[in-house]
């Protein structure tokens, strides 16, 4: 087996759902020893599904299985003293403590960075919460939707006359998870350089706002406030998804798709794609602002071609003309995609007898490739961790279990 990049890094993770677990999945798949500490009822993602044939089973939740690969699981009620004592024994041997709670909840449990730093001076306490650990909204509740709303991304997504739209796939959670992962690795680098643990405090709303392309910049540099306009960029039409004969394609003319005023005699790739070089004389082909405003007129020019060609024909022809068009795959399209297959992107895990294809690693490392092993059953490492590592008696396991601590 290849080396693991994060061998030796020990992580204790009480977070549930998506953001925190995705951050620790990225650590675990890279070799860190992640001990997932679930409440006795299990991580709530075990209840979210999807489930095989729609039959709920906490050991078969698709979301849980995807987000908790390569970890081990113990159950522990960290909201009560008996559980907190066990948790602190775990933290004594940990480099990183990950939690997904608001500060007020951690305060009630005695598990904030400030509560822990004197006993565990080298511990990195990584906290992801809807609005951050501090500030006037620190106690607010939230999810991906509230993060998308606050970040400005939502205000610009959707039709001008309808409500703003969030993006599918819970991006607020995943962006926050990736930012938490970055923060943890940065704090570990800092510890190596300067010594000492740290508080890594990630707000989901800020994490998404850090991905803002130019909404805040348009005001801060121009005084302009952008609205949503069919999710279109301010730079001009189309650069957008359009219908074709058998589905949809992304029509992206790119930097050199339309006629250039600097080279008026060169036939544009867009007119070649549409098989009508006279289009180069059309004002819609010559001016970006004109296309943006008179987009219906532009669609009338392009629709006859799109509606009579398949996505495959359109994208292949466009790419041959150096136009960066793209496909709009759905879930089964991705699972059967030849390019992703050749790159061996997807990974297989088995769960309760089922073989499942889960999303693969978001990047390929040549020396220390990340690798996912199946997510753990709830509490399956209780005996290993409590008895073998923390020194509890075997009989203690039953006592902790019958009082609902594990």
């Amino acid at each position: 087996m290849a080396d693991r990049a994060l061998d030796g890094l020990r992580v204790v993770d009480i977070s549930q759902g998506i953001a925190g677990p995705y951050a620790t999945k990225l650590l675990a798949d890279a070799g860190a020893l992640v001990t997932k500490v679930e409440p006795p009822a299990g991580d709530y993602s075990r209840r979210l599904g999807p489930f095989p044939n729609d039959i709920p089973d906490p050991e078969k939740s698709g979301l849980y299985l995807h987000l908790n690969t390569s970890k081990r699981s113990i159950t522990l009620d960290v909201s009560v003293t008996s559980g907190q004592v066990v948790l602190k024994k775990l933290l004594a041997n940990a480099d990183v403590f990950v939690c997904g709670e608001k500060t007020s909840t951690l305060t009630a449990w005695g598990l904030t960075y400030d509560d822990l730093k004197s006993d565990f001076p080298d511990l990195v306490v990584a906290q992801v919460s809807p609005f951050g650990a501090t500030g006037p909204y620190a106690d607010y509740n939230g999810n991906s939707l509230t993060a998308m709303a606050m970040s400005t991304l939502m205000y610009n997504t959707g039709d001008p006359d309808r409500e703003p739209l969030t993006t599918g796939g819970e991006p607020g959670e995943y962006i926050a998870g990736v930012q938490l992962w970055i923060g943890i690795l940065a704090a570990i680098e800092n510890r190596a350089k300067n010594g000492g643990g740290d508080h890594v405090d990630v707000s989901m709303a800020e994490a998404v706002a850090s991905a803002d392309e130019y909404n805040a910049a348009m005001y801060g540099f121009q005084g302009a406030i952008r609205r949503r306009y069919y999710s279109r960029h301010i730079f001009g039409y189309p650069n957008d998804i359009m219908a074709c004969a058998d589905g949809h394609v992304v029509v992206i003319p790119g930097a050199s798709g339309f006629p250039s005023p600097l080279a008026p005699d060169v036939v544009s790739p867009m007119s070649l794609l549409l098989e009508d070089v006279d289009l180069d004389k059309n004002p819609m082909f010559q001016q970006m602002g004109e296309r943006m405003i008179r987009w219906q007129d532009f669609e009338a020019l392009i629709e006859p071609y799109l509606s009579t060609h398949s996505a495959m024909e359109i994208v292949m022809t466009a790419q041959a003309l150096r136009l960066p068009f793209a496909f709009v795959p759905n879930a089964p399209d991705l699972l059967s995609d030849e390019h992703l297959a050749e790159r061996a992107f997807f990974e297989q895990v088995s769960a309760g007898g089922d073989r499942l294809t889960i999303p693969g690693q978001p990047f390929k490392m040549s020396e220390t490739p990340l690798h996912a092993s199946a997510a753990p059953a709830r509490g399956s490492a209780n005996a290993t961790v409590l008895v073998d590592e923390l020194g509890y008696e075997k009989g203690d396991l039953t006592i902790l279990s019958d009082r609902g601590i594990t």
Partner: protein
Amino acid sequence: MTEQQLPLEGIRVVDLAQVFAGPACTRILADLGADVIRFESAGRMDVTRNLIITDNDGKDHHWLRASYFVVRNVNKREMVLDLAKEEGREIIRKLVAGADVVVESFTPRVMGNFGLGYDALKKIKPDIIMCSLSGYGQYGPMRDYGAYGMGLEPASGLSSITGYPGGPPIRSGLSFTDPYSGFVGAGAILTALHYRRRTGKGQYIDLSEQEAAIPLMGAALLEHQMTGRMPERTGDRSEWAAPQGCYRCAGDDRWAVISCANDDEFARMATAMVHAEWIDDERFATVLARHDHHDDLDAAITAWTSKRDHYDVMRSLQAAGVKAAAVLDGKEILFDPQFAARGHFDIVDQPMLGKRPIQRHVAAKFRRFEAKVRRPAPLLGEHNDEVLREIGYTEQQIAQLKDDAVIADKPRLPVPANLIAMALRLPYDRYIEHHILQALEPDYREQLGLAEPADA
């Protein structure tokens, strides 16, 4: 905060990335203290030097006035280099010999064609960490596909689950998988640095932007496998909460999102809206009833929200323990008390442009250091001489490189700059008329408290 080094101080990054994903990646490394030296070419500047020109006015140095470029290139140094010339490539090789990380975002064949592929760089610096960010990865049948951010969010599958119920797939209004991939690339490089610190070994990272975002499709991919169903577009609704949606508030195009997972949260919302009778209304009393009568519930909620300011909706519902948030626009986020209290925007004094708010790229706040903006974005080729001196070039050699146009600090433009500047002005008056823009506020710098004496 005590005077200590930032976590990546002493790490040198050779940054050959352009546009959005790559520069977002290297900005994170720069914000964490790395010495990031970015590269452009005089004949082919980073295209973002043409985007969102300050005050929508290119003037005569439009390439120094593009906010799009500034936001993702603060904290970096820059050289303008002609990589088509052997002397230019020699400078890269000399820099790599003393560097820790190389980041590039060309289409896959380009670095190899320059003789600057990983195998070549590894010979110069055996423990180099190199990260290539591309649309579809370094191998596979689509590796040579041209790729823009606006195509890669759909290519990851996310657009297939984004859209109004029953409507077509749509993109986010911003190409968010671009910065998302950049963030993922930064985490990948930090992972590789950790490994190198432990073992002394470098490595190569192949990051496909399409693949980086597919994990967001995790639940949808498993739903299809587990149930045979095609995941649907549900607008702002969710299987995990009802009501959940985006509700019209008082004012012009003002909105707030609300989400209630369970009976308790719903009861708190109904009480906060002074409609406690909803708790016992058989259409709304249970989780399943609320999913079944979501349209009726949305109408009832909208009757309440539409008379209230979106911030009031957020504050009064949050005070009752209900998940809610105002949908902010690009101005409101700059004035929001939470973003302000936590310092999400640094005020940066940018040459030619004055003080401007620049968003953080490292979202985490730390106790022991700050990942903030320490220096403005570089002018074109601003650090040519400085960097060349550091790697041992003499003044005479530097002068020769200038004469030979290997380095430059001005763009080679195909037409006079004023023509390009004119073309870069967007027709904002017409954009307002067509509701592409909400407003254009000439006094914005006063409102932000960032006006310079000369502006007044």
